[in-house]
């Protein structure tokens, strides 16, 4: 199986690569359109600021490619947020895959929302054998609202989408690559998802 991590310059993607390697899954990094299109599984990571990440995607012309992919695609953290319609961070339009908007947490809260929090209302093969209220590691200041595409919920003052799914597109707000054994299970499930 060919697994490609989209490498468009957004932050630390080594840890995602290493997490797959620990599971015995080989992954390659690429920003090449053909390479990405021909993969069996595509990982779309992202750390940093939304509007600059969107610019980097546009520079490598990946913004037009990603929404057309037919194989399972997995957005992680900012990757998931960029798959949404619009984000308040940098007032940026996203890839418009998920019909969800991304907002900033209230000023009354400690932001970034940083640390281990639970996920509940798990609704997809992505969470096969993952128990409700399992802990995952989060680091983010913006959140995707709840919608019909929500497949996991986390509570931090408000309830928001910890994960989204539409057709072959999956996204998680947390960092499964940094979330111990429970996170590794989710990475494994994504690879094993039926396409």
């Amino acid at each position: 199986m060919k697994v490609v991590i989209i490498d468009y310059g957004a932050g630390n993607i080594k840890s995602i690569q290493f997490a797959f390697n620990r599971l015995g899954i080989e992954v390659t990094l690429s920003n090449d359109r053909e390479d990405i299109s021909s993969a069996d599984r595509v990982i779309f990571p992202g750390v940093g600021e939304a509007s600059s990440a969107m610019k980097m995607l546009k520079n490598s012309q990946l913004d037009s490619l990603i929404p057309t992919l037919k194989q399972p695609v997995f957005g992680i953290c900012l990757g998931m947020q960029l798959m949404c319609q619009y984000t308040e961070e940098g007032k940026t339009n996203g890839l418009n895959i998920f019909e969800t908007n991304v907002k900033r947490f209230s000023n009354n809260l400690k932001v970034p929302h940083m640390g281990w929090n639970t996920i509940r209302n798990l609704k997809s093969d992505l969470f096969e054998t993952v128990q409700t209220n399992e802990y995952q590691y989060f680091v983010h200041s913006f959140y995707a609202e709840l919608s019909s595409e929500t497949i996991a919920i986390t509570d931090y003052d408000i309830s928001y989408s910890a994960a989204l799914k539409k057709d072959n597109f999956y996204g998680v707000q947390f960092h499964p690559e940094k979330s111990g054994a429970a996170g590794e299970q989710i990475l494994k499930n994504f690879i094993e998802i039926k396409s």
Partner: protein
Amino acid sequence: MLTKRIIPCLDVKNGRTVKGINFKGLRDAGDPVMLAKKYAEDGADELVFLDISATEERRKTLIEMVLKVAEEINIPFTVGGGISSVEDVDMLLQNGADKISMNSSIIKNPTLIDKVSNKYGNQCVVAAIDAKQINKKWQVFSSGGNIPTELNLFDWAQEAEQRGAGEILFTSMDHDGTKNGYANEALSELNDLLTIPVIASGGAGNIQHFSDAFKIGNADAALAASIFHFGEIEIQTLKKELQLQQIPIRYENKL
């Protein structure tokens, strides 16, 4: 619910852990990767590696270590010690560090916080502050606590937040090494003042001290070194007890 974090801190010198680590069942007690693995398995929520080496080879050995840790460890980790430029940060993040902790370098050059935060986001910038109470004022020290500065803890922490730090790691020099508990009053004041998470450091000697840092100091995370290294407190035991005290904690009973 977001849980309070327990963070073991490992001092490393030339790629090896120091401060005498005493664990049963570890073949090589000086290997930071093996130690990190054990902590991750025991339920540590994050790890901090503090590099205290002073050789010219420093950078190379640190990067090698960071890469090995990133390969093996499935929880987040922070690297600190002598990081003084955006290039230093580039190297460490590219090799798999999740966060960078800076102390003296940002006192000398506060705009470094802005630069790193603009490039990578505030989630990876930890502003570490060492401070000591003198005439009822919390004075900030640089260079591993050796050089007094004009800065006041609370003002400096606020400035760091405004410049783009994503977390404050506050070490009370008055409490560090005493095992008499964290500086809970100062922690509580910091937590009222700031909107970013605060990590308590310095003074942990028993389980109650962690509980106090969370309940009285309102800290988001608590860091400790020797009590973990010498097995005085097992992380599992600590987390179980904190959970019994109704503190939100990530605890999975492995027995």
